[in-house]
């Protein structure tokens, strides 16, 4: 059973910390904005991929949710660069066009259909795994035991998600920057330094960059761990900070 860790933010992590946890690798690349995940944005992503690989761990590149013709070439070049320079072979995808491009460009790349792919395919029926297989995808992320069975039966690898992202709503634009106008011009990473919330009577939401009302869902049901063991799932642990990720890692190990 392989285990991978993915943090919301990697500021200040050292090479020793990347090597220390009993995990096989790290998920790198923000779903929306690398300025939130890395101190130096896209440059920070590249630096961190280098650190992880030098620490002897696998780097998984998580590609963005919103790939328009504006940023598609840049993300494609980034994926290509990580593949050639750092030996990255596993990619989290949720855009059909990008998966198609990557599968053609790098046939030996391992493509995982991300849990956020539910934005493009909300129902898991018998057609979806076959469609993804034709696309070139080899695995699917999910936090639901019932889905693990269906994914495995369809011949795809299961990536069991611990710490699934939950939210009230999200946008391709940053609420902090565009909607709330919290600062002028350049991104000041207010999503990292300020506690923002939108409140109305009996209802409130945190503002976390592109997300409103964001939280993580830790599996409490033993069925999750039973299914993950049964289907030989790769475990994907997502957390905001390293201590939380390590705690979840210990929980997963205790159940395996």
């Amino acid at each position, binding site marked *: 059973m392989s285990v991978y860790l993915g943090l919301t933010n990697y500021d200040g992590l050292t090479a020793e910390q990347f090597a220390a946890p009993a995990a096989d690798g790290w998920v790198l690349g923000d779903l929306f904005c690398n300025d939130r995940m890395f101190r130096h944005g896209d440059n920070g992503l590249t630096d961190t991929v280098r650190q992880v690989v030098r620490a002897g761990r696998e780097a998984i590149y998580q590609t963005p949710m919103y790939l328009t*013709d504006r940023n598609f070439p840049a993300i494609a070049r980034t994926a290509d660069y990580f593949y050639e320079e750092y030996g990255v072979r596993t990619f989290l995808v949720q855009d*059909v066009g990008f998966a198609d491009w990557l599968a053609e460009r790098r046939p030996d790349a391992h493509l995982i259909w991300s849990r956020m792919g539910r934005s493009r395919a909300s129902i898991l029926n018998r*057609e979806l795994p076959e469609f993804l297989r034709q696309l070139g995808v080899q695995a699917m992320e999910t936090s639901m035991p019932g889905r693990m069975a269906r994914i495995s039966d369809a011949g795809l690898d299961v990536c069991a998600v611990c710490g699934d992202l939950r939210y009230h709503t999200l946008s391709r634009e940053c609420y902090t920057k565009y909607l709330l106008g919290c600062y002028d011009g350049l991104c000041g990473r207010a999503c990292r330094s300020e506690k923002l919330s939108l409140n109305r009577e009996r209802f409130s939401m945190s503002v976390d960059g592109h997300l409103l009302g964001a939280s993580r869902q830790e599996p409490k049901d033993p069925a999750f761990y039973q299914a993950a063991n049964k289907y030989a799932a790769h475990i994907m642990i997502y957390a905001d900070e390293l201590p939380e990720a390590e705690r979840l890692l210990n929980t997963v190990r205790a159940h395996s």
Partner: protein
Amino acid sequence: MVRSELLAPAGEPAALAPLLDAGADAIYVGLSGFSSRPQSSDLSLEEIEKAAALCHARGARLHIALNGGVPEEKLDALYNSVSALDEMGVDALIAADWGVLARLSKQLRHAELHASTLLGTYNSRTIRYLQKLGVRRTVLSTNLYFDEMDAILQTVPDMEFEIVADGGICFNDNRICELPHVNEGGAYTVYCQQDYTLFRNGREQSPKRSIGARHISSWEIVDAYLELGIFSFKIEGRTVPYPYILPRVRKLRQALDAYETRSGRETSVLHYLCRRSGHAREAAVK
């Protein structure tokens, strides 16, 4: 002459004739049991057959929306219904489930296959993939910017494109929004359109603000979309009683018809603004 289509929603059979009278070129309806809208706003197979006959007699088209993902237990019934729809001559099926769309591309013999906005198509590569699946038209994501639409239309000119020209356009990604849409004391409440107080590090900021956009109507800038090459202009609202849809149809009809009578200078300015300098459209530059 620039071709375009005004696509209007019908939630009941009685809506069809008035919508066509108001200027709709095509009508779209939901298939009972397979759309994400309430059952009462969808049509049965028998009603659709009559609707198709009516539309075709009036020189109009009928599209069937299969919105939303299709649960496993409904798949076989769906494919049976699709066969019936295909044989009865509906003009298009709008699919919103990637796996089902791929399957329908092999099943359909007559009707066109359209890709719903719910599929989340944001780039040319995805649209090329849809083309390989035999999709004839793509309904573009509502949160694409003009230049992004332009890039797609220039890269994939042999695909037909549709936009939501009149309806609720959301700042949020409305395909995966979990914000409550509830009935509060008789009033329908969409939480993103309510006013919120912003707190910053625990301190209240003013003024109150909402986080969603109001209803939009693109009829005022329909010329710009026509310049881009958008073909179909969809009005949302299958669950809205059709008397409320009719004025929106008439307004959009006026705007689309007025494009043909624009002066050469006006359309040239639009052409420049829409960055189509490399792809001049004869009808736009008089």
